């Protein structure tokens, strides 16, 4: 890189580009490295959230369990939910978005690289802020849904919980900032930075789903942010937005929370649907069946997701008219979801299916998601939902959607794109062990929840009496949860093992369809030596194969497979291969510096305003430096 001698040091200088050492990671603005950071951080939180799940299962394995006391249990189940939603599934999806969006649309980076780094650091510090509560007097204990007025209570019964839910409100506000910033960034990237020729309807389905998810985030997060601010006002300033005795309304919280909370469900599961829509065609060696319908149903789900929130509140007492309206809207959101399932099935139909781990996890996603979808339809039977709601039947449902769905899909994505990221494949054999152990463990854990729920076991109870008929299935479920833990250990070993012994992948290990497989594995910092020109959906595939008149697949003869047959006009690219002369943004200290300010402001709201002032100054300093640091190193 350029090393011009500097005669006068500017006020803010940018760190040198480098590829090694901790500092290179701290100052990176490369979307791929940020994606990797997101992935590892989310996986670390996945292990923590999983450990909390094991604690829950250990406590509930038998009636009158003594592994945790009530206070500990409440904190653990609250943090399990918050962790898995905000610190695992969302950032793991963000890892894929960050790493893949520029590669799949043929861009060199996201639209705002420093903002991208800022999102990651804010997410990390938000997560650490939330977890610091365990050391500072107690973690949030009001459930991930934080229903007021319990979430406003500072003394519960005889027990003071001074700050537990302050951490909840402030932590989620900080994490919301990370997601909002990232969402804006990625929307701009997808809309503006597609390679020449990549029209909207030539975008991979994964990119479509990414776009829908980012738009959902942009519209849904402000709602919960407002709700959290009102909660914080009630807690810190003594207002009464949610306090009925002073003229407020606890149901206001529920409306605001679920108006965010239901789109959130699709924020969690649409990325996995996008991943599955890439994996199934590749491993079936057929195009996605009905691409426009899959895309449009994804968009429809996004829209309808804003019209079903009150199905979380059927027992709240909204009255029969509102409950009927939301019952009907909830039933009909199953239609676009069902369409996707059938289109995936039709994609497999008649294909030549290879059962490498990505395909196994993708099929696992589809089969488990069907179960979650069907139990979801039964929730829309409102009079019976009065029975099911807040029982383990609901816990079964959303674990089939969010674990059987989102987590299986995300693991499929990990196996699928791992060779692109590291240049080596994960072991297929270990991957199969991982899959089958996880699939069986998952069903042994969460299948019994259906029965427990129908037998009347409520959610969020730290204990139950013997003689309720719940002993057996709770024990089975606990056994299953440890099988899942075992499967995760297999995955970790696989990842570790692959560093040295993984099969060298090459550019295109799966004979895949989309343009990220045209570049090297791992991709160079500038992604593509020359930006590809896109002529079709699944452009890379069409460079390798053509269809004859009967729809039969015919390989393109010589030179087709390396993907270099056609390139962008010369002025788009560097002089020749290797990426010399391609301008890339320099690393920067400012994103992490600005991000550090946010949790400090948060601590200040709890422990005294002087900390907030320090945090605010750091944030301002970071933004100031951001604005005035030189454009290149």
């Amino acid at each position: 890189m350029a090393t011009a001698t500097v005669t006068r040091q500017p006020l803010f200088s940018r760190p040198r580009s480098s590829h090694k050492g901790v500092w290179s990671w701290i100052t990176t603005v490369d979307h791929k490295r940020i994606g990797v950071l997101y992935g590892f951080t989310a996986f670390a939180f996945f292990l923590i959230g999983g450990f909390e799940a094991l604690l829950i299962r250990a406590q509930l394995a038998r009636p009158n369990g003594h592994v945790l006391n009530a206070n500990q249990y409440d904190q653990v189940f609250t943090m399990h939910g918050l962790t898995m939603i905000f610190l695992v599934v969302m950032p793991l999806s963000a890892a894929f978005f960050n790493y893949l969006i520029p590669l799949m649309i043929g861009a060199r980076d996201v639209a705002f690289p420093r903002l991208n780094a800022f999102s990651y650091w804010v997410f990390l510090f938000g997560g650490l802020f939330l977890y610091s509560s365990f050391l500072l007097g107690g973690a949030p204990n009001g459930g991930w849904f934080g229903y007021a007025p319990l979430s406003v209570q500072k003394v519960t019964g005889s027990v003071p919980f001074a700050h537990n839910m302050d951490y909840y409100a402030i932590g989620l506000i900080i994490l919301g900032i990370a997601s909002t910033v990232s969402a804006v960034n990625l929307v701009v990237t997808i809309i503006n930075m597609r390679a020449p020729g990549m029209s909207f309807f030539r975008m991979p389905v994964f990119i479509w789903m990414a776009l829908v998810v980012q738009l959902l985030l942009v519209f849904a997060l402000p709602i919960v942010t407002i709700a959290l601010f009102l909660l914080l006002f009630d807690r810190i300033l003594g207002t009464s937005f949610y306090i009925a005795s002073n003229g407020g309304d606890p149901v206001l919280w529920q409306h605001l929370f679920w108006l965010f909370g239901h789109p959130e469900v699709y924020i969690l599961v649409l990325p996995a649907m996008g991943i599955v829509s890439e994996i199934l065609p590749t491993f079936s060696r057929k195009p996605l069946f009905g691409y426009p319908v899959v895309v449009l149903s994804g968009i429809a789900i996004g829209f309808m997701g804003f019209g079903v929130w009150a199905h979380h509140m059927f027992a709240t007492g909204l009255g029969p008219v509102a409950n009927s309206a939301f019952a009907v809207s909830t039933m009909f959101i199953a239609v676009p979801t069902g369409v996707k399932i059938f289109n995936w099935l039709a994609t497999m139909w008649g294909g030549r299916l290879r059962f490498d781990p990505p395909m196994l996890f993708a099929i696992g996603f589809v089969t488990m998601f069907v179960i979650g979808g069907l139990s979801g339809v039964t929730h829309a039977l409102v009079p019976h939902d009065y029975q099911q709601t807040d029982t383990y039947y609901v816990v079964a449902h959303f674990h089939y959607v969010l674990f059987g769905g989102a987590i299986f899909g995300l693991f499929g994505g990990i196996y699928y794109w791992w060779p692109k990221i590291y240049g080596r494949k994960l072991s297929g054999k270990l991957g199969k062990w991982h899959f089958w152990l996880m699939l069986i463990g998952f069903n042994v854990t969460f299948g019994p929840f259906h029965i427990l729920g129908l037998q009347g076991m409520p959610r969020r109870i730290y204990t139950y009496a013997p003689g309720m008929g719940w002993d057996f299935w709770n024990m089975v479920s606990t056994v299953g949860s440890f099988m899942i833990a075992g499967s995760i250990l297999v995955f970790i070993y696989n990842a570790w093992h692959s560093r040295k012994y993984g099969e060298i992948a090459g550019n295109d290990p799966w004979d895949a369809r989309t343009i990220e497989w045209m570049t090297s594995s791992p991709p160079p910092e500038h992604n593509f030596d020359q930006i590809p020109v896109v002529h079709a959906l699944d452009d890379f595939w069409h460079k390798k194969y053509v269809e004859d008149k009967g729809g039969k697949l015919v390989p393109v003869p010589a030179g087709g497979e390396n993907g270099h047959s056609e390139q962008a006009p010369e002025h788009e690219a560097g002089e020749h291969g290797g990426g010399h002369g391609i301008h890339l943004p320099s690393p920067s200290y400012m994103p992490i510096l600005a991000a550090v300010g946010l949790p400090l402001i948060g601590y200040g709201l709890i422990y005294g305003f002087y900390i907030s002032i320090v945090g605010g100054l750091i944030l301002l300093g970071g933004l100031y430096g951001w604005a005035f640091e030189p454009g290149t190193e």
Partner: protein
Amino acid sequence: MERRKLGRLVRPAIILSLVFLGTACAAHAPQDYLKNLAGSEARKANNLFVPVFWIAAFVFFFVEGLIVFAAVKFRDRAGREEPKQIHGNSALELTWTAIPALILAVVAVPTVLTIFSVAAKPGPNQVKIHVVGHQWWWEYQYLGTTPEVITANELVLPVNKPAYFTLDSVDVIHSFWVPKLAGKQDVVPGRTNTLEFTPFETGEYYGQCTEYCSLSHANMRLRVIVKTQADYDAWLREQQAPAAQPTTTEAQQGQQMFMSNICITCHTIAGTQAQGQLGPNLTHFASRGTFAGSMFDNMPGNVDRWIHETSLLKPGVIMPRFGCGQTNEPPYASMKCISDSDILAVVAYLESLK
């Protein structure tokens, strides 16, 4: 060879899962809401659920069957040709959009009808009860009775007579649920929700709070005891009588202890100076089968242990631990304990409050 090995595994797996299912169905589950339903609204809900369950089961086997079939039939084998490239089929896609939409439209009709059918309506000839949720116990006020009957955790109802509930909470949101009789209804502070159902069979039914309400949410349980009309009338008369005067010397000593301690700041015993409102009304404490949010059977040993250890048994409760040798947190840190024999006397007094 492979296949035979698989077959040898499949049969025990099927038998094992049948055994599991058998165990599940045989288990006595007093909060199960699929079987032995005894209330009008619970039966209506179940009548809606059962047909949809079978539709869902059919869809489940159909779709999962197709997926497994496709996975086996179209797996890559030696000699398998490259597949025909099919990009879509509008007619097919329209079909699998329309059919689920049609099924759901059919399901939506009885759903909406049942929603309106189970909506609570006040009317004549109902037992009217005001339910108040507290962290972590239930209070029942029998409206229209003079003197008003107020009881806790155990709800007594006459059989075959509609019961109409108004529900409110003094602290956080709770949810009132007796699965064998009716679906749950949230109890939201500042908002009077309603619930109506008719119990069809006498007996004792289990329920519990189902909206998370912190520490002892799991211990906020309840019972509904459905009696014949004659038994119910007799019960109501007993409840309206003033509190029984203790007859044994031990019980009299217990009464004295009760009245001279902080018990009376929270509990009411009608006809005495105990008029507290924070805790359950104890006027006819001994007539109840359970206590402390229906956590414990109402037996002298249990009550004795409760007064000693209280929040060790039920986390978070505001009642202090009276037993000597127990330490209390503020605001009770400096409170004087009560000797074991005095506690026994209090227990004797409470157990005399028939």
